[in-house]
C-alpha cells in the first residue's frame, strides 16, 4: 500500500480494493456487507436493498446530464441491480462558497425530475457549505433504500457456465463524455452521457423472467471491471466477442485516438446482465423495447474454463485476455 492516497485509489480497480480491504474493512466490516452494488437487509419480514454513493464529477454538468441527475441515477441503479424497487432516498450536498445559486438550481431540479421518473421519494437531506477552495464546486452523496422483487435472486456470485452476457446499451459513453468535457485533449466529438435511471428497465426484464443471475451497473471502471469482478465473485470465466460489443462510433473514434479501451470507460445508464442462455433473446427483446436500452446486445458467454479471467475473441479471430483493470485512466502517447 502506498503511503499517500493517489488518484488510482479512487479508480475502482485493484488499488481501490486494496484501500477498502486494508483500511475500511479493517474497521468497518460486517456480515451485511457484500461485493454487490447494494446490501440486502432483512428487517422483520421485509427484504430491503440499501446503498450509498458519493459524486464528485468534474465538470458538474456535461452533455446528457449534471451531477444532480447522476447522483440520483447512481443510487437508483445500484438498487435496481439487486432487483429492488427504489423507495426512498437521502442526499447530502456539500457546496463551495461562492457557487452561483443559478447553477445550483438546475442540479437540484434534475435530482427531483430523475427521482420522480424512477418513482423514488427524497425523505431527508443535508446541506453544508465549505470555504472557497475547500471543495471543488459541489459534491453530492446520496443514499437509497428499495424493496426487493419477490422471486428475484441477483448477485455477482450467481453467474453460471453457459450463461449469456448481455449489455443493456452501448458502452463507455459517460466516461468518454466527461473526458471530452474536461477539454484536456483538444478533441471535439458529438458524445452525450448515457446517464439514466434504470429501475423501469430492470422491472420490465424481471416482469418477463425472474430467471436472471446477475445485474451490475457498469459505472466507475466500466463494463470490463464489472466482468472481472463477477468472474472473481462467481469463480467463472468469460468469453467476450469484440465484434458484438456495442460502442457508439464517436466513442470508438475517441478511444482510438487516446488509446483507451471502451470496456473500461464508465457507463451511467448501461447495465451488465447475466442470465441463462435460453432467456437471453427474450431479455434482449424486452430491453430493446425500453427507452434506455435500445442498443442491448448479447456480447458473450460465461465459461467454466479460465476462472477469474475475461477472454476476448478479437476481430482477426484470435483469443486474447482483456487486460485487468487497474490504475488511473491515462491516455497513451504517440
Amino acid at each position, binding site marked *: 500500500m502506498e503511503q499517500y*492516497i493517489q488518484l488510482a485509489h479512487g479508480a475502482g480497480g485493484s488499488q481501490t480494493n486494496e484501500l477498502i480491504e486494508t483500511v475500511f474493512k479493517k474497521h468497518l466490516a460486517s456480515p451485511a456487507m457484500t461485493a454487490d452494488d447494494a446490501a440486502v437487509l432483512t428487517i422483520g419480514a421485509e427484504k430491503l436493498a440499501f446503498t450509498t454513493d458519493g459524486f464528485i464529477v468534474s465538470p458538474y454538468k456535461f452533455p446528457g446530464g449534471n451531477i444532480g441527475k447522476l447522483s440520483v441515477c447512481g443510487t437508483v441503479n445500484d438498487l435496481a441491480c439487486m432487483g429492488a424497487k427504489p423507495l426512498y432516498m437521502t442526499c447530502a450536498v456539500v457546496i463551495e462558497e461562492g457557487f452561483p445559486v443559478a447553477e445550483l438550481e438546475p442540479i437540484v431540479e434534475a435530482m427531483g425530475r430523475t427521482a420522480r421518473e424512477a418513482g423514488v421519494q427524497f425523505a431527508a437531506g443535508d446541506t453544508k457549505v465549505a470555504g472557497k477552495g475547500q471543495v471543488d464546486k459541489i459534491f453530492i452523496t446520496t443514499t437509497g433504500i428499495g424493496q426487493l422483487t419477490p422471486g428475484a435472486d441477483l448477485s455477482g456470485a450467481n453467474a453460471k457456465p453457459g450463461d449469456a452476457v448481455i449489455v443493456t446499451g452501448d458502452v463507455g459513453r459517460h466516461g468518454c463524455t466527461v473526458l471530452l468535457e474536461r477539454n484536456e*485533449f483538444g478533441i471535439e466529438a458529438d458524445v452525450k452521457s448515457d446517464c439514466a435511471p434504470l429501475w423501469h428497465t430492470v422491472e420490465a426484464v424481471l416482469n418477463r423472467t425472474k430467471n436472471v443471475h446477475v445485474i451490475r451497473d457498469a459505472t466507475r471502471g466500466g463494463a470490463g471491471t464489472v466482468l472481472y469482478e463477477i468472474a472473481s465473485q462467481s469463480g467463472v470465466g468469460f468469453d467476450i466477442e469484440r465484434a458484438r460489443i456495442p460502442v457508439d462510433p464517436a466513442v470508438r473514434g475517441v478511444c482510438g485516438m487516446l488509446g483507451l479501451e471502451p470496456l473500461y470507460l464508465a457507463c451511467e445508464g448501461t447495465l451488465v446482465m447475466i442470465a441463462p442462455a435460453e432467456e437471453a433473446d427474450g431479455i434482449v427483446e424486452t430491453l430493446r423495447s425500453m427507452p434506455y436500452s435500445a442498443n442491448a446486445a448479447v456480447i458473450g458467454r460465461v465459461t467454466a474454463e*479460465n476462472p477469474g479471467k475475461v477472454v476476448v475473441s478479437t476481430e482477426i479471430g484470435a483469443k*486474447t*485476455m482483456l487486460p*485487468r483493470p487497474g490504475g488511473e485512466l*491515462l491516455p*497513451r*502517447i504517440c
Partner: protein
Amino acid sequence: METIERAKKIVEGYDGRPLRIMEVCGTHTHEIFRLGIRRILPDNIRLISGPGCPVCVTPCGFIDEAVEAALEKNAIIATFGDLVRVPGSEKSLAGARSEGAEVRVVYAPSDAVDIARENPDREVVFLSVGFETTVPSSCLAVLRAEAEGVDNFSLLTANKTMPNAYEVLKGSADAFLYPGHVNAITGTAVCERLQSEGVSGVIAGFTAAELLTALAVIVEKSRAGKPFFENCYPRVVRPEGSPKAIAIIDRLMEPCDAEWRGLGVIPGSGLALRDAYARFDARKKLALSPQTGTGNPACRCGDILRGDCTPPECPLYGRICTPLSPVGACMVSGEGACSAYYQYTDRG
C-alpha cells in the same frame, strides 16, 4: 475482412526458415497483443517487441529531473499521461504529486503553453519525450510561446530518433516492422539505406488488416532470401515524409547522444534544443542536477528489447514488477513489451 483472411492464411502457412520480426513502435506492440496476432503465428515466426515506446526508453534520470523541477523548483509539470507512473530512482511523478507536486496530464504540448499563460508566476515544464512523430508538436509549442511572449514555458527533452537505434538493433532481427507514424515524418530513405546495408523490413500501418498484410509481405519476401524493403502503409507514408515537420525539427533541435532505458547511451540518437532556444530549455533555465539515476540492476529490459529473452524469463516480471508498480522500462506503459505480455496473456 477478405484482406484479413488472405493475409492470415499466408502468415499461418509459413513453412520457411525461422524468422525473427521486430516491431519498433509501441502502438504496434499494443495492437499486436490486443488483436492476439502472436497467437496465430506458426512456431517458426517470432515477434520481438523492440524499443518503440517512447515512455519505455525514457531513462530513470529524466524522471528524477522532472521530480526535481516539480518538488524543488516549484514548476508545474505538463506531461503525456503515460509518464506519470514511470519510476525514477526514488519516486515517480505520481509519487511526487501525492507529495504536493503539480503534475498536469495534457494531450498536446500547446496545452502546456495555455497552462503557462494561466499561471504567469510559475514555470511550466513540458516533458518532451517521443520520436520524430511527437517532436514537431513540441517545437511548435516553443514557437508559439516565443510568438506570444510566454516566457514561463520550457521543455525538458528526452526525445529520440530511430535511425541510429537501428544500427544497435540490426543483428537482433531478420526483418523490422517499421513504425508507420515515424516514417510518415521521416520518409522512406532510412529504410532504403538499411536495405542496402542488408537489413530487411516493411513499413506497417495500425489496423488489423494493415498489420497482417505487413506480416504477410515479410513472410513472402523472406522466402527469396534477399534483403527487402516495402512500404505497406502508402496511404500515409510518402517517400519524402513530411518536409515541413523535418524543417521545424531541424530549426529548433539538434542531434545529441541519448540514454535509452535498457539499452544505454546510443550516440546521436537524441534531440536537444539548439542554443538559440536555450531560454526554453528547462534543464538550463532551472539549473537541474545532472542525471545520475539508474534502474534496478536485476531488470532485463535491455535483453527483452533485443529479443534475447522474453518477459517471463526476467526474475522481476510479475513478481515485483507489474503494471501497477513497474520497475523496468518495458512494464512502464501499456505499450511496453512486458506490460503487454502481462496484460494480454494468460500469466496464471
